[in-house]
């Protein structure tokens, strides 16, 4: 940020920020006039966005074309439009400013902003340099990264691995110093939350504090990377990216069995599946030779889309919506660019054409699907799908089947026995009973079978022709195209199959400039809140430039190619996800304290320099997990059918209009109430009420949003989940750490926040306890009502007032900023 900005911003403060910003933007523009304006990055995007609608290609209103140098300088019917070095004699400038008595350009659209106008004026004044397309500098993200040299730094003692050299070099250039290392308690809480999404136990903290060995920290990292909850934590952002949910969306919103795919993701992370395989199996597992059941399940990635089963839905229209969605999700996820613009026209900024878009769509256009799910019942599974029962499910089905067959046999035998089945008379009571038993066995078997997973997967069993659709309209096909990767990027080798498998292999080939960068950045983002490229969803021309491009490239190549052992670096295989994560979390950069001084905040509010560790609130899904695990309620079973934890009773009430099935929320009982949030049934039309700020899982989302609103506060203060957790946490400390109130409160604090509270903190929390004790002692009924919240059973031996008062104190602890934050 330029000094001019800062002064303006601080002086005007919140009172008239907009005016201040407008003034500031003028000032900053004025001050950049001396700076050389770059045609390709600054002028061309303006022309593309505002002029090319009428002045490019075959469209040349007034005879003017602005899409190449010669035509632009030659001008249109009215003569030359540009005079290099002379803005006053360049009619183009007059027209965009609306001078000279002619209509302001672009006609019918918003005028250019002052900033854009100034930029064009400056560019003309500086000589209107318009490089040939062939000389145009390629956008950085489309150039294959090579491993840059590791920079030397002054404070070499700080370096733990190459990441730190890149970060410190940048920090030193800014004249700053890195923050000191965070204290050990903060570190283990940070690591544990980041890697498995749960806080450390008191014993784990103590063990780490007591371990004075030089690799104590790395031991914790390795323990957590091997923990099966690691896969659950890593799966969360991937499910957002894959717009995963447990229902189809839209009016009928039928349930699906895609949870089998979700379990595949968790397992892949836990098994440290190399990222190239992770990519190939999800994009084309079904096309692998002798594909296994798991590989077919993996291809469910491209079947996690919405499905519209509305009465009048036009199948072909919906099928095209699904195809668009696959292009969008795939290009955002692997290329870090959105192709959406090219659905209707060539991309205005990035080098992608409509032909590229539909050639990419052609990869997904061979699925034997109609576009709409079948009607009827709770589950609506659209073709193609596979049965994916687990061994134990198969065994149970077999059992139920044979139970039915046995009963059937018995009934049939009795039917033949005239004593039991006399002609023209009522059957004997024992036959009647046997028939009833058979009927119920049949019902049990059929119900069970109907609930066995049928996973929607990909298949290329129905080859179709693909056409460029004019303005994205499926009723207006144009030229035919074939499956091809975007022309601007390095072509796929000739021996790659011309199908999704070839596409997947191309994404993870060494020639692809995007995939490794995009994913190194996404993994970085998990641990630092922001990516090195902040616009994690867009690496195209309009992206936010990387703050540390050398670090990004180094990480990308390191990730893609692995490395031999060297100084500060152990040997790793290509595409090794755990190795990349280990590298990140063992860096000195990651281990810094997240405390920030006012000066540093002012200098770098977004922490782009990384001269401190980031500090951010955990996602709501993890906040719930924290409450469950610290209160001892957590059922840490991994995988399986989604569950239905507490929701306001009538949460699905609005859906009950659909009479074809019962939409009453089938709240779970017992241990299923306390599964990790990852396993909560995700209905697309009504997301879980207490999972605020979460992706709604309708479109691909690769950046998390963290906001702070009163509604979030109400959730963690009042939802059963947090009140019940507080009661159980209170019960735990009363039973296990009986003693003075301050002592028990300090213990509860330690369980949630990992550190021992300071005296003043214990004092404040004890004040809540004391007031609550007074109130609950005077009003036993309130105390009892408060303690009745949640299904878990209370230990009745604990005095009611004490238990309720300590519950109130624990609820306050869960609502501390610190408890919700990874510091």
């Amino acid at each position: 940020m330029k000094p001019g900005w800062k002064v303006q911003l601080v002086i005007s403060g919140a009172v008239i920020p907009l005016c201040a910003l407008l003034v500031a933007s003028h000032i900053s523009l004025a001050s950049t006039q001396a700076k050389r304006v770059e045609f390709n990055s600054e002028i061309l995007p303006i022309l593309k966005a505002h002029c090319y609608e009428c002045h490019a290609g075959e469209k040349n209103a007034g005879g003017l074309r602005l899409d190449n140098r010669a035509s632009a300088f030659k001008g249109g019917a009215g003569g030359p439009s540009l005079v290099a070095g002379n803005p006053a004699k360049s009619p183009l400038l007059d027209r965009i400013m609306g001078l000279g008595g002619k209509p302001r350009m672009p006609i019918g659209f918003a005028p250019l902003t002052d900033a854009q106008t100034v930029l064009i004026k400056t560019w003309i004044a500086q000589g209107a340099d318009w490089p040939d397309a062939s000389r145009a500098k390629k956008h950085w993200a489309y150039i294959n990264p090579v491993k840059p040299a590791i920079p030397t730094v002054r404070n070499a003692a700080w370096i733990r691995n190459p990441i730190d050299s890149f970060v410190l070099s940048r920090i030193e250039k800014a004249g700053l110093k890195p923050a000191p290392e965070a204290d050990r308690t903060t570190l283990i809480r940070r690591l544990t939350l980041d890697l498995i999404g749960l806080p450390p136990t008191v014993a784990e903290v103590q063990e780490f504090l007591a371990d004075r060995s030089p690799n104590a920290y790395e031991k914790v990292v390795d323990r957590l990377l091997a923990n099966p909850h690691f896969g659950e934590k890593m799966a969360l952002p991937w499910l957002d990216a894959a717009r995963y949910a447990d229902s189809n969306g839209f009016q009928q919103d039928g349930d699906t069995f895609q949870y089998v795919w979700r379990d595949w993701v968790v397992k892949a992370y836990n098994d440290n599946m190399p990222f190239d395989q992770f990519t190939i199996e999800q994009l084309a597992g079904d096309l692998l030779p002798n594909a296994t059941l798991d590989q077919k399940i993996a291809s469910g990635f491209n079947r996690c889309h919405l499905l519209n089963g509305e009465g009048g839905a036009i199948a072909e229209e919906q099928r095209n919506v699904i195809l668009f969605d696959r292009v969008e999700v795939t290009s955002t996820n692997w290329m870090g660019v959105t192709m959406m613009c090219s659905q209707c026209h060539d991309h205005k900024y990035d080098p992608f054409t409509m032909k590229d878009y539909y050639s990419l769509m052609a990869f997904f256009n061979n699925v034997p699907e109609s576009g709409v799910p079948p009607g009827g019942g709770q589950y609506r599974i659209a073709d193609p799908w596979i049965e994916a029962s687990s061994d134990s499910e198969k065994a149970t089905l077999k059992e139920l089947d044979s139970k039915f067959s046995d009963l059937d046999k018995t009934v049939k035998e009795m039917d033949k026995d005239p004593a039991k089945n006399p002609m023209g008379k009522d059957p004997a009571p024992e036959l009647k009973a046997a028939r009833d038993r058979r009927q119920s066995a049949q019902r049990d078997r059929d119900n069970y079978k109907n609930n066995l997973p049928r996973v929607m997967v990909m298949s290329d069993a129905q080859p179709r022709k693909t056409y460029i659709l004019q303005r994205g309209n499926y009723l207006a096909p144009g030229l035919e195209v074939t499956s091809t990767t975007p022309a601007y990027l390095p072509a796929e080798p000739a021996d790659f199959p011309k199908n999704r498998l070839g596409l997947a292999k191309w994404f993870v080939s060494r020639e692809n400039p995007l995939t490794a960068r995009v994913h190194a950045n996404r993994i970085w983002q998990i641990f630092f809140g922001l990516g090195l490229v902040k616009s994690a969803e867009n690496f195209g021309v309009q992206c936010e430039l990387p703050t540390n491009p050398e670090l990004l490239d180094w990480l990308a190549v390191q990730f893609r190619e692995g490395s031999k052992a060297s100084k500060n670096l152990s040997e790793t295989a290509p595409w090794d996800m755990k190795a990349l994560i280990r590298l990140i979390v063992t860096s000195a950069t990651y281990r810094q304290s997240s405390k920030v001084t006012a000066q540093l905040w002012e200098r770098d509010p977004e922490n782009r320099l990384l001269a401190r560790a980031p500090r951010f609130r955990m996602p709501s899904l993890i906040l719930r997990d924290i409450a469950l695990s610290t209160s001892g309620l957590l059922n840490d079973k991994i995988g399986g059918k989604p569950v239905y934890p507490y929701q306001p009773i009538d949460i699905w009430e609005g859906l009950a209009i659909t009479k074809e099935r019962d939409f009453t929320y089938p709240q779970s009982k017992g241990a299923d109430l306390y599964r990790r949030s990852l396993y909560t049934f995700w209905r697309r039309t009504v997301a879980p009420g207490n999972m605020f700020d979460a992706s709604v899982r309708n479109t691909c989302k690769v950046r998390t949003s963290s906001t702070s609103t009163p509604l979030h506060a109400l959730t963690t203060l009042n939802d059963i989940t947090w009140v019940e957790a507080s009661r159980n946490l209170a019960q735990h400390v009363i039973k296990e750490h009986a003693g003075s109130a301050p002592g028990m409160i300090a213990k509860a604090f330690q369980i949630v926040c990992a550190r021992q509270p300071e005296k003043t903190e214990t004092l404040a929390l004890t004040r809540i306890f004391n007031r609550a004790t007074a109130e609950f002692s005077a009003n036993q009924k309130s105390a009892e009502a408060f303690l009745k919240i949640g299904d878990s059973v209370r230990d009745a031996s604990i005095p009611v007032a004490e238990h309720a008062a300590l519950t109130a104190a624990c609820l306050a602890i869960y609502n501390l900023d610190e408890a919700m934050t990874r510091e």
Partner: protein
Amino acid sequence: MNPEFEERIGVTRRQFFGKSATGIGVAALASLLQSEGIASPTPGMLAPHFAPKAKRVVVLWQGGAPSHVDLFDHKPGLMEKNGQQVPDAILSKARLSTMTAAYKNHPVLPPIRPFKQYGKNGTYLSSLLPHIGGISDDICLIKSMHTDAVNHAPGVTFFLTGSQVPGRPSFGAWATYGLGSMTNDLPSFVVMTSTDVGRTCGQLFFDYYWGSGFLPSKYQGVRFRGEGEPVLYLKNPEGMSPELRRQMLDDIAELNRRRLADYGDPEIETRITQYEMAYKMQTSVPDLLEIDKEPQHILEMYGPDVHRKGSYARNCLLARRLLERGTRFVQLMHSGWDQHSNLDTQLELQCRDTDQPSAALVADLKQRGLLDDTIVLWCSEFGRTVFVQGDIKNPAGHGRDHLGSCYSIWAAGGGFKGGYVHGETDDYCYNVARDPVHTHDMQATLLNQLGIDHTRMTYRYQGRDFRLTDVYGKVVREIIW
């Protein structure tokens, strides 16, 4: 507008509040500034592009799609065409849903109830809408609406978010993002839903109809529910008194302030403020819902249904109470008009339940001087076919299918021309004949009334500057003053 710009404003605000943290409390400071008239509770990300005509919006969503043929688009000539085929030339221009796309016969079903003239300007409306007729001089009736969609969910999503595919920010989210809030005690964007009494209409309301898409999630609409708790998690846990909660919040704030002093992260300051606002909402929302405090004559304006929780009438009254307390955007979503096979009974029932309250809301806002700067928009996803769906001889089982190529909506207040009828359709209420208004045009016009140039309110996401109106839309000057 791009996110970077937004963040700079955010930073400014944080810096400002951050500096004040040691002295005067943030909330106190904000309200101090507010009472001095120099700061709104939360400024929008955008200054209006020009002087706004309106600062509040209430959308009266008529879900399921009311029949414009029966209610608004008066074509006396249809009576003599009863049972005759709609000419192919008329039919060929519009896309139909799969329910009737394969129909070979398209016999005309004329309006099932007579039309009447209302108001000084003599606007023709169905005799089933006497109350809306009573305010006809205040409404701007647009008979030439048309949309790209022919099915409900895509149609609703298109009207309310600008795209048929879910995931874009809703109109209300854009408006509150752009203009900010006018109250600290209530949400800026509130949604309430109602359904027809018999639940004959299969239309559901999905939360992406009021979602924030790629805008920060704080701009999404807050649903006030008819049954149970009006706002999720609003009530203190059973057994916890307001006094105990108050003290608890004070102690939480004290501990958070200590953490702020240690860590310096302004996000902590934000959290403290949000917890305080949460507490305020716990009183302001129940107060809002106490409609019994309204005088008898006001309750009577909205009709007897106002006493039924979750009814459209009650929601209309609550909308007025919200708007006068500073909520910027209220979206009422009513479901009941999808009359494929029960037009004969349901049309009348839906009119009975929505006519009086809709008109009452307009009149009530007007008598309080709020109508001038409040847009009341009565609208739906599309209209219905003039030809019958089902057997024309069986009124008990027939109705009309969806029609996107033309339909009617109306707007009142906020600078929309009262007593004006815009646009003409062909003889069959099937295609627009004059002055078409596309969904994006209407969105552009609504934003225009809020002081926003729809081409300039953009948000950069995935490298693209998104708008509510995509790359389309033009302000319809004829329908505004």
